[in-house]
């Protein structure tokens, strides 16, 4: 294909007290940026900083108090970013113990964290991705929600509203005030129904498109021809008819009224949706081997990227943390091939450069190889 793509590029980044980086400045190339070095010197932390700046959180740890360098009370990330649809801009994050985090676009603060999501779209592939198929439904919902939220601000707004209304409704159900529950529950049902219908319809529509991406990418990466599929399970037959979802939802809530009062909890809704992944009709969570979980996760993330190609204005940034060590030579070749054809910016961490010898050209203008040593000290090793 000779279509030209529009891309999001991080030109450089500066870190202050971000994990083990006291004061780090790095410039990046538009294509593939390989970051090598021994374990524990901070290569993952460097790509984690990029993720933090795009998604307002670390992909390594859930708590910001582990993100700040030990013994420090604040951290900062600053980056210069170029996108095709807008002037180059700088994006910063400043975190203080006590005040939390604040994001800035060209030095003006973003009102809400949710305003950040989607500004610089990102896809991350890391060893923890096995959880998506290996663990409970919450992991799969989190994958789906993060994927759709970067593309649709309305979806993210609906998720935020939904969670807030859900907390109100659960608080009413657990208040112990039966008279209030009977008087008010219907009002909260209707509040919940709007975001519910939009979330379910959106998940359904996105998954319809996503299915072909998953099939194509799994076929590319796996040489055994197993067909990956999934079933989206919610409280009703999935559809994109919002009114139909709304009335099915209200009916289900009515049916579960007694059970919900007994359990003091909302038992119906998109917060309990399940996405079942299958390989040749067999549920991967129950029957998948370690290798199949790893390949499936890889195919999911490649599909997230190729789905974004179809729908986003700018190609997202692709982060691959510590994934090449586990792959056999044939899969390394398929994945590097995928990366060489990917017109967006890519970041790879790896213990050393050897898996890429003869596969990725780090002497080209587009790519570079950086090495991190204790300190952390970062040096270019390509030119």
């Amino acid at each position, binding site marked *: 294909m000779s279509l030209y793509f529009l891309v999001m590029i991080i030109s450089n980044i500066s870190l202050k007290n971000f994990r083990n980086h006291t004061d780090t400045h790095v410039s990046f190339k538009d294509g593939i940026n390989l970051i090598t070095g021994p374990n524990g010197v901070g290569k993952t932390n460097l790509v984690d900083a990029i993720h933090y700046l795009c998604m307002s959180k670390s992909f390594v740890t859930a708590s910001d108090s582990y993100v700040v360098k030990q013994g420090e009370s604040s951290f900062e990330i600053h980056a210069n970013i170029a996108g095709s649809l807008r002037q180059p801009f700088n994006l910063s994050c400043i975190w203080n113990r006590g005040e939390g985090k604040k994001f800035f676009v060209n030095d003006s603060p973003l009102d809400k964290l949710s305003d950040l999501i989607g500004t610089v779209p990102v896809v991350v592939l890391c060893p923890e991705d096995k959880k998506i198929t290996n663990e409970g439904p919450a992991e799969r919902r989190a994958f789906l929600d993060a994927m759709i939220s970067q593309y649709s601000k309305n979806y993210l707004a609906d998720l935020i509203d939904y969670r807030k209304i859900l907390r109100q409704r659960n608080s009413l159900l657990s208040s112990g005030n039966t008279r209030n529950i009977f008087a*008010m529950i219907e009002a909260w049902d*209707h509040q919940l129904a709007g975001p519910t219908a939009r979330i379910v319809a959106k998940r359904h529509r996105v998954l319809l498109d996503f299915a072909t991406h998953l099939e194509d990418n799994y076929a590319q990466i796996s040489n055994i021809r197993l067909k990956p599929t999934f079933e989206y399970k919610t409280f009703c037959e999935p559809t994109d008819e919002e009114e139909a979802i709304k009335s099915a939802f209200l009916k289900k809530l009515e049916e579960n009224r007694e059970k919900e009062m007994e359990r003091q909890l909302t038992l119906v809704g998109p917060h309990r949706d399940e996405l079942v992944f299958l390989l040749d009709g067999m549920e991967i969570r129950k029957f998948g081997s370690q290798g199949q979980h790893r390949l499936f996760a890889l195919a999911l993330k490649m599909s997230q990227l190729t789905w974004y190609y179809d729908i986003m204005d700018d190609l997202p940034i692709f982060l691959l943390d510590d994934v090449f060590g586990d792959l056999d030579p044939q899969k390394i070749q398929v994945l590097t091939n995928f990366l060489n054809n990917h017109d967006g910016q890519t970041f790879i961490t790896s213990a050393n450069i050897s898996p890429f010898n003869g596969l990725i050209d780090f002497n080209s203008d587009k790519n570079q190889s950086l090495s991190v040593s204790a300190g952390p000290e970062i040096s270019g090793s390509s030119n």
Partner: protein
Amino acid sequence: MQITSETLERAIEELAKLPGMGRKTAQRLAMHLLKREKAEVHRLADAIKDLKEKILYCESCFNVTDHSPCSICRSPKRDQSVICVVEDTRDVYVIEKTGEFRGMYHVLGGVISPLDSIGPDDVRIKELVSRVNKQDAPVQEIILALNPDAEGEATSFYINKLLKPFDVRITRIAHGIPMGTELEFIDEATLSRAFNGRNTF
């Protein structure tokens, strides 16, 4: 700053409790008051005291007033058959400033929020129902003018349900795009709601 007067410290502490007031601002304010004329400071102190001692809630609409019923409820020029339901006194001021509305008000004094332990009995909904139920001055229309957030909407839903059996028209104010605002500056939630509430051109 080393504080050498307990009286000053107490004033700063009390001022710092006010909304939007940090400790630094409270210190600056206390030092400022200290330098003003005695009479001026007394006037301020009296005005603050009177807030609690002289201001009442109107027995009919629950707006704040110096005399109950309030001037709006007593006015013969206003339409007694229309009641606009608002969350608090601030909203009455905002609507009055438009000069557009010539009916009565009903101030709920809050909205229902289970997370804050505010149920239907903690806001003045019963009082609204008995106003509608009164035989002598029939109410024809109730306008719900609560905030378009989840709590405001849930409260509106509940009031609508309670008032359904009565012979009264229930309406709500339209939520949409503020005048003179360009589309690109409107947040998605407002814009979506404006789309959902669109009407024929």
